[in-house]
């Protein structure tokens, strides 16, 4: 019997765009044994809160959860760098038997005394959910003793997928919002949600907003600070990027403080420009819109001629995309189009029905659209479509490389700035630098093609 690349249970999560009716099964639990590329609830919480640089992030659990998330994001800080340390209670058998609350308490006191953070996040892991440590109570006690917020993050790994982790992170942050002084905040102010300052991206985005006369109150969470988040309710608008990793917080803030939100993306020229225009439109001030147009014009003036050089080389090349959240995939589809490239496969770990419908609308016929995929499926798609470049994260990289396919890292580990106008140019460079490398001439895939 031939091995099954696609398991029967997974067929509803894979579509080829065409005349057939489109209904994507998604937001399902990962299938046992399918080797999903997804992580867990803890991972979702950890990546969202990770860039908050002046807080202690203590992982309450056995050592693995902390050690695999040590310094994994390319999230930069302009000041403190507490987020780059990996704190754990390193639970041992005896703690599992007798409970880890005492150890957690001591660890918290020790770390707070040592680092004087502005707050502490305490992440729950699988095992804590089972042994039933009362995180809430320990955090409350330490908070009272140390006079800083100590926030439990209910991120037991097995309680869903990354999405539930996003929610848990947002719930923890929601406890901070509303506790700071908001005097002096401009009417024309926003919070940036869902940018994690990879390679310094949020500094670029903040600069654009400053140039059009908008004050940024809080970065959530790139280069994030506890005190900024505490006064985030003073902003007039939440500008949310990313597929829902911080959308829950925006919803909570809308309900609690009546702050509306916009969904934007900073990837690609079109989406970046539209983000500025949308914010300008929201404030209904002609001067802001005028400045937004100026910023876009200035940036494009230098950008487009350079981009065109890359476009020349890359036109007609085929790209495949597999990312965590679908929102990034929308922008990538457009960005590749700007470079003259064809997207022949696109997928995400955690897209929703609406996300996949949007992907269907913006892709060409024949494009493979996939939810919660795995190495065997992805590799078969790369081969089927004879892809030139694959965009994904670290776990996707060896799939591409093993098959002799170029790769662009667009995940949170990356060290290249890919957002904003400048980021689009970097993206083109990244893609070009991989696709045009002479090494592909030696891989079996191309050697055979040349026979």
């Amino acid at each position, binding site marked *: 019997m031939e091995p099954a690349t696609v*398991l029967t249970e997974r067929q509803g999560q894979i579509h080829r765009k065409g005349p057939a009716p489109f209904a994507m099964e998604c937001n399902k639990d990962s299938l*046992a*044994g399918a080797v999903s590329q*997804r*992580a867990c609830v803890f991972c979702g919480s950890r990546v969202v809160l990770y860039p908050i640089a002046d807080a202690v992030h203590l992982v309450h659990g056995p050592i693995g959860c902390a*050690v695999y998330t040590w310094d994994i994001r390319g999230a930069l800080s302009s000041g403190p760098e507490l987020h780059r340390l990996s704190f754990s209670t390193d639970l041992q058998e005896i703690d599992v038997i007798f409970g880890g609350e005492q150890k957690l308490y001591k660890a918290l006191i020790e770390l707070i005394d040592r680092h004087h953070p502005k707050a502490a996040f305490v992440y729950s892991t699988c095992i804590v959910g*089972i042994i039933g440590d009362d995180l809430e109570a320990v955090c409350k006690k330490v908070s009272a003793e140390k006079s800083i917020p100590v926030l439990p993050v209910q991120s037991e790994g097995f309680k869903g997928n990354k999405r539930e982790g996003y929610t848990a992170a947002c719930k923890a942050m929601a406890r901070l919002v509303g506790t700071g002084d908001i005097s002096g905040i401009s009417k024309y102010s926003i919070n940036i949600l869902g940018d994690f300052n990879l390679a310094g991206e949020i500094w670029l985005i903040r600069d654009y907003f400053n140039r059009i006369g908008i004050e940024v109150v809080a970065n959530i969470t790139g280069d994030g600070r506890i005190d900024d988040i505490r006064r985030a309710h003073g902003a007039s608008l939440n500008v949310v990027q990313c597929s829902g990793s911080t959308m829950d917080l925006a919803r909570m803030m809308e309900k609690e403080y009546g702050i509306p939100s916009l969904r934007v993306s900073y990837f690609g020229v079109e989406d970046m420009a539209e983000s500025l225009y949308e914010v300008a439109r929201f404030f209904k001030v002609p001067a802001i819109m005028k400045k937004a147009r100026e910023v876009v014009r200035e940036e494009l003036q230098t950008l487009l001629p350079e981009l065109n050089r890359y476009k020349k080389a890359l036109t007609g090349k085929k790209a495949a995309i597999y990312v965590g959240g679908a929102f990034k995939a929308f922008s990538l589809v457009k960005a590749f189009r700007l470079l003259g490239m064809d997207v022949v496969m696109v997928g995400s770990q955690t897209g929703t029905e609406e996300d996949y419908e949007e992907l269907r609308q913006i892709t060409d016929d024949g494009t493979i659209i996939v939810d919660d995929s795995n190495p065997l499926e992805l590799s078969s798609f790369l081969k089927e479509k004879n892809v030139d470049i694959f965009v994904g994260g670290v776990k996707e*990289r060896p799939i591409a490389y093993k098959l002799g396919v170029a790769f662009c890292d667009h995940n949170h580990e990356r060290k290249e700035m890919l957002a904003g106008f400048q980021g689009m140019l970097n993206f083109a460079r990244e893609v070009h630098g991989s696709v045009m490398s002479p090494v592909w001439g030696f891989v079996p895939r191309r050697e055979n093609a040349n026979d």
Partner: protein
Amino acid sequence: MTKMPHYTSTTNACKLCKPIGASLAFRGIEGCVPFLHGSQGCATYMRRYIISHFNEPIDIASSSLGEKHAVYGGGANLKLGLRNVIKKYRPLLIGVATTCLTETIGDDVKMILNEYRQEFGGDADHPEIVSVSTPSYSGTHMEGFHAAVRAVVEQMSEGGEKNAVINLLPGFVSAADLRYLKDLFADLGCALTMLPDYSDTLDGQALNDYPLIPEGGTPLAAIRKMGCSRATLELGRTLPDITAGTSLRDRDDVPLHRLGLPIGIRETDRFLAAIHEITGIAIPARHEQSRGRLVDAMVDGHKYIFGKRAVIFGEEDLVVGLTSFLAEIGIQPVLCATGGKSGNFAKAVSAVLAGTKCDMPEVHEEVDFYDIEERAKELRIDLLIGHSKGYAFARREKIPLVRVGFPIHDRMGGQRILHLGYHGAQMLFDTITNTIIAKKQDDSDVGYSYM
């Protein structure tokens, strides 16, 4: 000895969790898919961690437990996951390792697997399944690695008529090290069963197709006959009391020779002498010549490194071997540190230093990088030797880091670092000496272009 302060919290752990060790060991067996019984995150995190070192695909399946499984038991999902892995991968063997979640909810994996075998065992293409208990709250990745090797031997090998094969249990060494050991036995013309062997599966060639399971690994047929071998060589001076080697000895009367990792001259001498003693085969001249060249090089370079003070950290057996080598070349190991707690570490360091003029360094088990750094600051050191997670410390203190072992996440080719044998010592010597020369050159106002 107890100069190291003891903290409750762990900061930047110097160890990994148990199931990752088991996964790595399983990956070194022919046709084997590692399978973690737990929540999806564990498998994904470990894959990411392993990929970042080896730059190779590694599919680790998961039973992807959710909340209801945590309450009602994960048996059904384990069985479903096994079926799906069999459908997709057609494995010859599935190596099931537990996680802290499934250990704590009390899943009886042995019983579940027995049920599974009764339900599906009759199928023609049914693979073998071995299982190992690897709760992350008890032991490090090294205990997981050794436990997996032991489980494979105990559950698969059989006794029988003796043959001339040597069993070699190398421990967790690099792909290059494994290739060295295989080459050595090939040179000797001595039949070898080395378990595990991921020299191909985690350091493979460029391919045209994504391998379901990469070729290579210890052949199953050879594992089954390990009880018939002439002798077992088991490498490591800090091993647990009961291992694959002791099981083969006690169950099948296979004589066991436990030796340190052959790092540096004396440990390699001992290793080769043991092989000679067991097999009666003379060590080929080629290896004697490598030893001669190594000694010659050590003479050439000795002045640049004499009296330098080094901190060595990482897995216990690797640290022990490196300490032994440093003593041979005139570098003073001042601190040997590990996150493990075998209880044998100090004894082993002392044993390999016997007969040298080297002072006994401080030796610490169960420490993290916070402890190492705090202690090392008082020890006036010139050099760090260990895996890439020591980089943060090296950078802060402006001390060069010589990268060895696992993981190497910030350089190419970690899997190709050779540590073992005279050849490995030669590479280590050149790297260490050049690192010290480069530091002096870079720091110098003059910048001499001769040494």
